[in-house]
């Protein structure tokens, strides 16, 4: 079990290195997919089918969107250039990350032996309290409903932001009434003031 997870992790690391190093954008996108599908297999092995299903379908949709978006762009090859500052700084930060990760992981409960305090309560009382046979759904939509509401808000906000950025045409020019009301100067007025200032 753990050796299979290790193989999956190594597979993921190799996939991400290929995704970074390859020159072709399409191969890079497909190598990114390696990470997502391996993560979903890992979730399935660890006994979390809910998250595995979500991971698989999200990965498929993201791959389709990325391939669709990258193929239409003309520049599909990346020029390589050596940046000493970037390499040195990323090495330093990676070393710092390793040190703090070692300090933090030492205090975590060991793999396969979670501390069952709140989760024991959920497992024992979820079916009577909510009537849902799927304990995961009863947690995310009943016990932890605020979390799901926040997640939906994050999704909604990101969609609105993407819509605002990706629209083809901007808003129409400000009308005269609006500029008078808010007190924004029109271009002619700005030019007049500038000329008065120069004189």
């Amino acid at each position, binding site marked *: 079990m753990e050796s299979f997870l290790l193989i999956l992790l190594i597979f993921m690391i190799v996939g991400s290195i290929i995704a970074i190093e390859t020159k072709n954008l399409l191969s890079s996108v497909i190598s990114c997919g390696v990470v997502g599908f391996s993560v979903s297999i890992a979730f399935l092995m660890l006994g979390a089918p809910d998250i595995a299903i979500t991971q698989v379908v999200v990965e498929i949709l993201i791959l389709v969107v990325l391939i669709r978006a990258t193929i239409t762009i003309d520049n599909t090859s990346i020029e390589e250039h050596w940046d000493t500052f970037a390499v040195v700084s990323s090495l330093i930060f990676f070393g710092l990350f390793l040190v703090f990760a070692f300090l933090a992981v030492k205090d975590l409960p060991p793999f396969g032996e979670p501390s069952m305090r709140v989760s024991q309560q959920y497992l024992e009382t979820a079916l009577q309290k909510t009537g849902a046979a799927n304990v995961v759904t009863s947690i995310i939509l009943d016990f932890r409903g605020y979390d799901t*509401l926040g997640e939906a808000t994050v999704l909604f906000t990101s969609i609105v932001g993407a819509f605002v950025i990706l629209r083809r045409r901007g808003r129409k020019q400000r009308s005269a009434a609006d500029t008078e009301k808010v007190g924004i100067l029109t271009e002619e007025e700005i030019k007049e003031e500038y000329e008065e200032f120069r004189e």
Partner: protein
Amino acid sequence: MATKPDIMISDGPKGMTPIVKTVVRFAMGIIFMFGWYIILYGHLTPGGGFAGGVILACGYVILTLAFGKELGLRKLSDMGASIIDNTAALLFAVVPMFGFLFGWYFLNFLDKGRPFQLFSAGNIPLYNIFIGFKVTASLFAIFMALSIFGRFVSKLVDEEEEG
């Protein structure tokens, strides 16, 4: 029955090859049925509103890729997707407020029913359906926005067809 021919019946020049169109025609109903199954049975089996919504969005994306953007926009226009997205998000925030009538926010106030039945677990299937609608509409809209690069693309497509 059908008065005018549908785009899905005719192998028009738009979209991909007839092989892809035939396969998509067979797989379409199964994909949508599976998505709705994942959403509606989210409180009984693995899955839920988010996973089912992404499957439904994948169905619309496949339709768009195989048959061209006109058919995809006819099945779910981006204006309609915006409206569905906003309405479902609002409902998901407002319906838990009725819990204040009986106690607190996010209270499961509907009838719990018998466990392992489709109509059980009170509010949870309702929230699953809201999230499913929201995720379907928003992910399809974001696909359209990313692939065609335009706000309210359906109007632009109509203008192109007319002009």
